[in-house]
């Protein structure tokens, strides 16, 4: 089994590859450079991205 950390996954919206410069963490937010959709890391192994949820009422500072 390879110990290589996957730092690339497909955008669930447009299938373009989305890369990370460093090892991603669960819940990390990113953006697809092709379609511009905001993404979130939902699984590290295998690296899985989902479209980030819409802002909720209690979100903020």
């Amino acid at each position, binding site marked *: 089994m390879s110990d290589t950390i996957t730092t690339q996954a497909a955008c669930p919206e447009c299938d373009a590859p989305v890369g990370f410069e460093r090892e991603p963490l669960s819940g990390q937010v990113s953006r697809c450079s092709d379609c511009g959709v905001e993404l*979130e890391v939902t699984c590290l192994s295998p690296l899985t991205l989902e479209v980030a949820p819409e802002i909720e009422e209690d979100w903020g500072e």
Partner: protein
Amino acid sequence: MRIAMTYTRLRTEERLLLDECESLGAKVTPIDLRQAVFDPHDPGEWSRFDAVVERSVSLTSSRVVARLMESFGVRCVNPRATIELCADKLVTSAALVAACVPIPYMRVATSPEAGMRGIEQLGYPAVLKPTIGSWGRLIAKVNDRDAAESVLEHRDTLGSVNHAVVYAQEHIEKPGRDLRVFVIGGEPVAAIARYSEHWVTNTARGARTEGIEISHEIREISAQAAAVVGGDAVAVDLLECPERGLLVNEVNHSMEFRNSIDVTGVNIPGLLARHTLEIAAGERA
């Protein structure tokens, strides 16, 4: 020392904090709260931490963590009391007024009819805000009675229970900007001005930021406001009232700072990381 960072979305701010803690020699355990299960009878792994930095974008999650960490005897950054004081604008306002910290004139009511009377007492334009909310969402400037009645009716009919409270504030004719002061460990460490053509000068709504000097007046009022809510790191929003000078508009317990580092030249996450390490090491209460 062992430090955890709880979060619901890992944004630039959280990454920067992790990096800064690491550069100071501390390994921080990042914990995605959506995966976490707590047993209030048994702190388990949580009791191993000397401090937990709470960075949830969700207020509900922040409250869960802060309450449980307090019951586990684990120091939360910020502590529960600070989060509770900042979470609800009415609670914040009441605490600031009790401490004689200047804020805009305001009225509070629990029905649309009483809310209308409160707005009329303030005069127009007035600003209506949800008591819980952030990033300038759902705040409304009402310029006349017709607009005020419409907003109150919409909130009463469509809003959740959070919108049952009418929180009305006088509209301050600010000079195209408001100020934000970052306070860490009680010390104002950086300040920005947020400029916008729109009356809402929030970076989440596209405001442009600029670093500013922390004047004596800014230092005094922001430190005073931060002392009222206590805690470790807060962002104090100030309005420049032409007649009454600086007024505290809001105090934020989960400050965002990614856009304020370059413009101020202050390593805000570095200072917060250092503060957290001092707490974890028992050098700060």
